[in-house]
């Protein structure tokens, strides 16, 4: 489905997705949908903006997603609300699926999710009986060790109710970053060439070998979250990683368990960082290559609903800089694999001719239509791309049939305990982006929200601990600690804490748990155990935060701009 279609859905199941902070313009569609009478079911441990205007808010306990999803499927089936015709014509694996969800009665799910059984029933009925029904999910689903299981669980709900193959329905991961969809499209993945063509498929590999003129490896590569293990703990010498070429990323800020990442970068023989800003990763890099920023180069981004859209050079960059692709091209040539492209369109045309589903998305088409949603297979101007997938219930599987898949719920990897009695989850700051090197240098965005950020805590917890709004507190986990300001709110449940992840001082990734989903390799950012401690001497704390902040800046050689807070 496309973003514009959100406001025409009959029902929206918003599962672990906070549009207002992650994508205000997508939240705009949700608000407009509500005005048009759309029913909203919001599943989130916090009272998010969507929850606030929802018809039903299932405020589940963090880490209980799959129990709830299986229970909704259980209700839909047992109350005869499934679309039997669609299931028979377009899907496989329904019977095994039924066996697994059998025990997930709403009563059982209530014990895990703390959502009343009756609420689960009502929500399942509302979803199943209001057509068309759309599911949006975000990091609240993906950043768990059961991420893939829950995504498949949500897909089951859509399959069971025939909510595929038409507008304003289906299931949509709202991709967080401006070009994360594009990076995946381009094959910056250990198991895929561009266009999601598998590296282990001999025919595909042969095609790329012919195109690029060299033999290619058939071994699936290393995921970014496995790098620490492959540097620090890998015994097998042939598997150890000795060089790390980091381009447009800041793992020392955005990876979980930052202490481990810093050690990884220090122990790795050769680290290259190619970025527009000095950042925490740069403190550990052996070579730093300065590239042009957004606004200083041309190219294409893919937005969350598969739309290819042009980015254009708005101002001339500092002459001493090179674009990312020029740098990569020159290094490749110096290493003996010559690359000589003149501009991004030349690279783009090479790429789309290697990817059947992108073949028709030319620069010319983007210029004319503004946005081209893939698949767009035909270069002629008539093929304007595909607003939504699986038209007519045809799926991208061998037999075009959707597959049911269900499995049992298991708790997050690290639960609250005596030493760390509260849970911590990472969340989004609306006015800042990713590791904040861009927005942190925008004057008015910095004015709105600055170091050391906040930890959202339930008002009763704060009263019990004698904490008031704005007070600096220390928050610790097994892996580390950081200092941030306390924000008492009734929007979170007792025992739970929430922090945004882009602060240098309030760096919650010092605390997060690096345990991964076995399939997607995504870390469990949304759940770890932590402890909050009151800091008696607030004056010391305020100065200490300033000192830490200035210390990092001096390490990075920053002199101008006090940047005080």
């Amino acid at each position, binding site marked *: 489905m496309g973003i514009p279609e959100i406001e025409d859905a009959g029902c929206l199941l918003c599962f672990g997705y906070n549009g207002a902070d992650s994508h205000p313009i997508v939240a705009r569609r949700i608000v407009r949908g509500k005005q048009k009478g759309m029913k909203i079911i919001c599943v989130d441990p916090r009272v998010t903006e969507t929850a606030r205007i929802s018809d039903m808010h299932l405020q589940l306990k963090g880490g209980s997603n799959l129990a709830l999803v299986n229970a909704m499927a259980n209700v839909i089936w047992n109350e005869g609300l499934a679309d039997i015709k669609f299931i028979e014509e377009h899907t496989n694996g329904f019977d095994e699926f039924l066996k697994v969800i059998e025990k997930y009665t709403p009563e059982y799910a209530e014990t895990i999710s703390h959502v009343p059984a009756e609420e689960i029933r009502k929500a399942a009925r509302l979803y199943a009986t209001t057509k068309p029904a759309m599911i949006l999910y975000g990091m609240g689903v993906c950043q768990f060790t059961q991420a893939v299981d829950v995504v498949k669980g949500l897909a089951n709900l859509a399959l069971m109710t025939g909510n595929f193959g038409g507008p304003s329905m289906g299931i949509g991961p709202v991709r967080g970053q401006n070009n994360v969809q594009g990076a995946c499209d381009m094959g910056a993945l250990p198991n895929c060439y561009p266009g999601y063509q598998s590296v282990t498929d001999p025919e595909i590999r042969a095609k790329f070998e012919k195109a690029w003129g060299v033999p290619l490896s058939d071994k699936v590569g290393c995921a970014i979250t496995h790098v620490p293990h492959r540097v620090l703990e890998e015994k097998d010498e042939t598997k150890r990683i000795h060089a790390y070429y980091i381009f447009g990323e800041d793992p020392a800020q955005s990876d979980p368990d930052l202490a481990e990442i810093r050690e990884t970068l220090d122990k790795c023989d050769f680290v290259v960082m190619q970025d527009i800003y000095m950042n925490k990763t740069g403190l550990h890099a052996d070579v730093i290559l300065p590239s042009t920023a957004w606004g200083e180069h041309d190219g294409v981004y893919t937005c969350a609903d598969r739309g290819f859209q042009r980015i254009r050079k708005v101002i001339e960059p500092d002459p001493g800089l090179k674009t990312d692709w020029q740098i990569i091209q020159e290094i490749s040539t110096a290493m003996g694999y010559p690359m000589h492209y003149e501009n991004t369109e030349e690279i783009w045309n090479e790429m789309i001719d290697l990817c059947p589903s992108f073949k028709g998305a030319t620069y010319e088409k983007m210029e004319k239509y503004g946005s081209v949603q893939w698949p767009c297979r035909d270069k002629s101007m008539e093929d304007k791309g595909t607003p939504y997938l699986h038209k007519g219930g045809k799926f991208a599987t061998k037999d075009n049939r959707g597959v049911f898949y269900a499995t049992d719920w298991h708790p997050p990897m690290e639960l609250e305990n005596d030493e760390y009695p509260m849970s911590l989850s990472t969340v989004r700051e609306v006015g800042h982006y990713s590791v904040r090197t861009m927005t942190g240098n925008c004057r008015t965005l910095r004015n709105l929200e600055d170091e050391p950020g906040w930890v959202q805590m339930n008002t009763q917890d704060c009263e019990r601990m004698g904490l*008031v*709004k*704005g007070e600096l507190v220390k928050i610790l986990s097994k892996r580390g600690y950081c200092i941030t300001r306390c924000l008492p709110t009734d929007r979170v449940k007792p025992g739970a804490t929430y922090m945004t992840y882009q602060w240098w001082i309030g760096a919650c990734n010092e605390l997060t748990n690096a345990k991964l989903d076995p399939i997607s390799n995504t870390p469990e950012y949304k759940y770890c155990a932590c402890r909050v401690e009151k800091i008696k001497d*607030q004056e010391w704390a305020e100065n200490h935060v300033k000192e830490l902040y200035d210390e990092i800046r001096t390490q990075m050689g920053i002199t101008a701009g006090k940047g005080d807070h």
Partner: protein
Amino acid sequence: MKKNLGSFVVGDSTKCTGCKACEVACFAVHSRQNNPVGKTVGTVTVPVTPKLYLTRFEQGCMPIQCKHCEDAPCLNVCTKGAISRIDNQVIVDPEKCIGCKDCMQACPFGAIALLPYAKDGKLAAQAMGETKVFASKCDLCAGVEGGPACVRVCPHQALRLVDPEAEAEEKKIKAAEALLMTKNWR
């Protein structure tokens, strides 16, 4: 949140009966620092110098006292530099005050009076024997246990200590709730 603005005490003439308990309490609490005063009036050996002033007017009466302005005219006009800001409150140092009366004229509220200055139980004499005076204005009972004495002693709760920032937060929430009720105004 760290306090950034000065608090101040404000009266309500619909409750005030003009009993001046506030003035006496104000004097007693402040004179205890350098003029020992007992519990009864009989032990007072120095003039009563309050820092708030019971004022009668057409519709009734109420005490008037300093607002601890954020851009204080008295502080800005005091050429001697006897007025300064300590923990967000505007404080006059009686030792430095030379009685030039500029602050009285600058203050739009008339919250400052020139009163005799007493130390160690007796009036402070000047070089040629005249009694020393000082600009007397509310210091929000800085350093006094329990906060402003006038608020505590008033029999009719006619005096209120205002914390502007905290109260603004609460008022904004009420205003937001009002917006909830008027959203279908068309």
